[in-house]
């Protein structure tokens, strides 16, 4: 299951989580009984690693409640895909509905939580995840603005830094916003960070990572929670 890779350079003595492990950690923290939307990218992976023993209903913007894990290849159905256009299954109790109802659920405040990807998150919870402004890469807003405006809670799942090593958690988003001040918690490949009125609070860090190292990769000032834990995922 684990595909974590060791980081190179700077003599860093820590191991980053894989995309699936980021999704798993977020899934573990979803409260029992929640109705949760999974956005494109790392979030949709969470459907494959939902914790045992909790009943959580997954919503997909394309008209599904009760999304189950990916099917075996032989059981793929071209009419049953998620927001990332990946094959999924339907759990008992699941339902299908028209797009305008899918977004009534979203915009109407019926979802407990939405897990989204991000290009940038600011220290005040501003989210940017729909356009890079580069004409070679057309923008794509999808349901992100509706989710950001309508879900009761927004968690972001992302790599901690860009492929070039630049911070994705920034003082001010340089990219156009999806919504201001909506992100409540950030799950990255090295930490779990809460967005609070008093600033960013580190809840979890991968073993071997120091707060100083984490701060170097994060623009806004970080505070370590008194009860912080090591970020360890199966």
């Amino acid at each position, binding site marked *: 299951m684990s595909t974590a890779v060791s980081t190179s350079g700077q003599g860093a003595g820590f191991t980053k989580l894989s995309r699936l492990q980021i999704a798993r950690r977020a899934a573990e923290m979803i409260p029992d009984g929640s109705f949760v939307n999974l956005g494109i990218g790392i979030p949709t992976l969470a459907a494959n690693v939902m914790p045992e023993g909790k009943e959580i209903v997954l919503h*997909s*913007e*394309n*008209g*599904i409640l009760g999304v189950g894990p990916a099917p075996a290849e032989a059981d793929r*159905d*071209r*009419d*049953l*895909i998620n927001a990332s*256009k990946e094959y999924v299954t*339907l759990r008992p109790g699941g339902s*299908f*509905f*028209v*797009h*305008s109802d*899918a*977004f009534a659920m*979203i*915009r109407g405040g019926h979802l407990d939580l939405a897990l989204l990807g991000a290009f940038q998150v600011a220290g005040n919870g501003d989210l940017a995840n729909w*356009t890079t402004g580069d*004409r*070679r*890469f*057309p*923008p*794509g*807003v*999808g*349901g*992100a*603005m*509706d989710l950001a*405006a*309508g879900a009761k809670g927004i968690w972001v799942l992302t790599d901690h830094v860009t492929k070039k090593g630049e911070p994705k958690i920034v003082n001010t988003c340089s990219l*156009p*916003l*999806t*919504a*201001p001040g909506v992100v409540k918690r950030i799950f990255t490949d090295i930490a779990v960070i809460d967005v609070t009125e008093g600033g960013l609070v580190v809840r979890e860090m991968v073993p071997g990572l120091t707060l100083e190292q984490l701060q170097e990769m994060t623009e806004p000032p970080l505070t370590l929670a008194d009860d912080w834990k090591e970020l360890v995922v199966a």
Partner: protein
Amino acid sequence: MPIDKIVPDVAAAVAGVKDGDTIMISGFGFAGVPNDLIHGVLDSGAKDLTVISNNAGTGTEGLAALIGSGRVKRIICSYPRSKGSDQFDARYAAGEIELELVPQGTLSERMRAAGAGVAGFYTPTGVGTDLAEGKEVRNFEGRDYVLELPLRADLALVQAYKADRWGNLIYSKAARNFGPVMALAADLTIVQVREIVPLGDMDPEAIVTPSIFVDRVVHIDNDREWDI
């Protein structure tokens, strides 16, 4: 005289499509896309089209082929960028296609408003972002909302699972997506279905799109996999 909306083939289904038309196309990703009808529009030669669809086509067939033909001048969608959206990406980069990007829930609600006779609605989606620029913002009970206007079309091309001769429809799983709300919002709703059943066969409790919203139905029984 019996009502019969079933037409013999794709050409008859899209008959009357003309230059400058605005066309809604159902589907999300590769699920629920009416590829046969899209190719019917392509074969008709109609140009200067505005397309309203969630995505902007992938691969070499369906919407990607229509865009690749250069006959789509404008697309209104929420998520054009996808793996394989090369046809759109190239035309967009070259400035050869106009893009109106609309948040997905606003897109579907604008259709619903058009079909339901609602002149506009205020939504919290997009407040404080570039996509709300130039739009009226109004505060209700302490929260800002953006005014959005109805979105209608000359034609809607929809894929459904089953129809009867009145045009009652049921869909298959997540291939339902935009179909029912596009059927509300177009002057002429054209549907391709995998199965036609006798009138009265469908459970009235389970009909998703009632017949009043449908104009033409064509039976497409080939189950080919398109390059989309």
